[in-house]
């Protein structure tokens, strides 16, 4: 993880191919290519944000450029609407609960697998790792029936618990690998001093595990914040919809008024973009390293 986290691609000392100075022609060709790809990435996003400021007829004639007249009310009406904040709130509650339980359950189980040998421990670990091999969608109908029979349909828990369950494999895997690489002298010393497993977990393991807690936390937060299929199936009331479902409903309601839909999309992805720019190093490292290691 650290090798990605601390990576500085501009650092000439570590970059491959740095043995020779790049020729100007090569550099120009590189910049043209990189800027071209960057434009393709960014133009849809910027056009979406600008489109939210236009009138529908303006959008029809002028999908690329600046708005002829800035329609601030498109955004203003959504910002003051209850539904926008409700959906953001729903997404946040679901994501925070998911992250907390994924971290807690994953770290606790991984601690057992990392430090204690018990009858069948290898089999049990492999049992958890089965969960890494197939997506939640495969068993979505029986899962729905189970959640319904537990009385959790149309509640936050009906979304949170399956998300945690499907995240345990990843969480246990990442935590266990990390715990096992902590220096074992710590463990020996703690036991000589008469420290039990639980105190060791709480006072030694967890404080040393901030990087992996961040990685697992970021993976499960992003997954939950963006999740669509589980809320789609488990929730019925619009008042509990997280924002990805909200976009679909909004689009269904205003399907003749693209400018409003664009403003709505922009406002819903805005938190993601802001957080991404603020914490980009951690987010990129967490998502990439987490994927590689699990």
């Amino acid at each position, binding site marked *: 993880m650290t090798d990605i986290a601390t990576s500085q691609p501009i650092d000439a000392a570590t970059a*491959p191919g740095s043995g020779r100075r790049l020729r100007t022609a090569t550099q120009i060709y590189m910049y043209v290519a990189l800027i071209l790809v960057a434009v393709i990435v960014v133009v849809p996003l910027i056009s979406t944000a600008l489109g939210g400021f236009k009138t529908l007829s303006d959008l029809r004639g002028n*999908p690329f450029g600046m708005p002829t007249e800035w329609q601030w009310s498109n955004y203003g009406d959504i910002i003051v609407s209850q539904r926008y904040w409700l959906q953001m709130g729903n997404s946040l509650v679901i994501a925070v609960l998911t992250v907390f339980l994924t971290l807690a359950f994953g770290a*606790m189980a991984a601690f057992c697998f990392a430090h204690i040998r018990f009858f069948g421990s290898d089999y049990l670990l492999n049992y*958890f790792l089965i969960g890494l091999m197939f997506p939640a969608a495969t068993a979505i109908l029986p899962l729905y029936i189970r959640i319904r029979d537990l009385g959790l349909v149309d509640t936050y828990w009906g979304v949170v618990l399956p998300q945690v369950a499907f995240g345990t494999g990843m969480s246990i895997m990442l935590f266990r690998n990390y715990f096992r690489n902590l220096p074992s002298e710590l463990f020996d010393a703690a036991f000589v001093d008469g420290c039990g497993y639980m105190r060791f*977990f709480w006072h030694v393991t967890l404080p040393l595990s901030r990087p992996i807690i961040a990685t697992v936390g970021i993976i499960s937060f992003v997954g939950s914040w963006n999740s669509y*299929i589980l809320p789609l199936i488990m929730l019925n009331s619009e008042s509990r919809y997280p924002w990805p479902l909200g976009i679909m409903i909004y689009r269904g309601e205003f399907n003749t008024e693209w400018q409003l839909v664009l403003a709505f999309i922009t406002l819903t992805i805005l938190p993601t973009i802001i957080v991404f720019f603020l914490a980009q190093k951690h987010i990129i490292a967490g998502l990439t390293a987490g*994927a590689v290691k699990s």
Partner: protein
Amino acid sequence: MSMSETTMPGRTYSAARPRATLQRRKRSLKHSKWPVLLLFLPPALMLFTVLVILPMGEAAWYSFYNWNGYGLPEQWVGWRNYQLIFRNGAFSQALINNGMIVVASILIQIPLALWLATMISSRIHGALFFRLIFFLPYVLADVAAGMIWRFVYDGDFGLVGGIAHLFGAEPPYWLADRDTAMYAILGVVIWKYFGFHMMLFIAGLQAIDKSVLEAADIDGATGFQKFRLVTLPLLGSTVRLSVFFAVVGSLQLFDMIMPLTGGGPSNSTQTMVTFLYNFGVTRMQVGFGSAVGVVLFVICVTLAFSYKRIFMRHD
């Protein structure tokens, strides 16, 4: 420790102390092992069993019934649900589409990602900025990306329509045409995921020993020769990992399709999961939908196992 014991039999004191420590440690292990196991394992174990493993088993069971999800499944239909799946044209289309996503990833996305990664890893100003921009689509929700591109592809109000207008051409409606819709979706998949693959390659490039490339330099290798003969072979494991993620991602693709086409027009953009949703979930055909889930499960597990066995055994 054992050395001092065997070579210097007189000095028992120094040897005895670690042994006593060991015994005490063993005893303390024995005493405190079970409480922690009984407290720490059950939450994850119960949740995982009840919400992941049992539903998968139940899917296998329900798949032999015709059932609407209420009461108990009673109408046994044997293998009929499976026969219906494999006779369904939309399902074969979904299989083809999942395959197309993997092929597009191997032919376009991964080479693109590798190309960008080599440029960003070379000494170039603004590398950090480009890395940030290219990764941005990956953190956006699939639903949002799908909705944004629905606007981009819109013939009347979107960017593609605007470009056509600029050239005085008739606006194309790619998403509404069954011959072009899937290609349009492939474009969005690449737009959204190339940055992730690029990051894998950047990490892979950093792990390459610089001295190998310097040796190639001294031998007078050109930039392209260095890439083809040194860098690329050393990136083998990253390429295999990247392809693996493309396969896994393709098998899960659902969120992005729904805002773009929902699987239409006339089922031309179904994937396995949209097929499961459109034919199993929305019609509450629990038996049929479960059978689709079982087929998807078998495909996922078979691919994961055989891919790891065949391509990634040395990684």
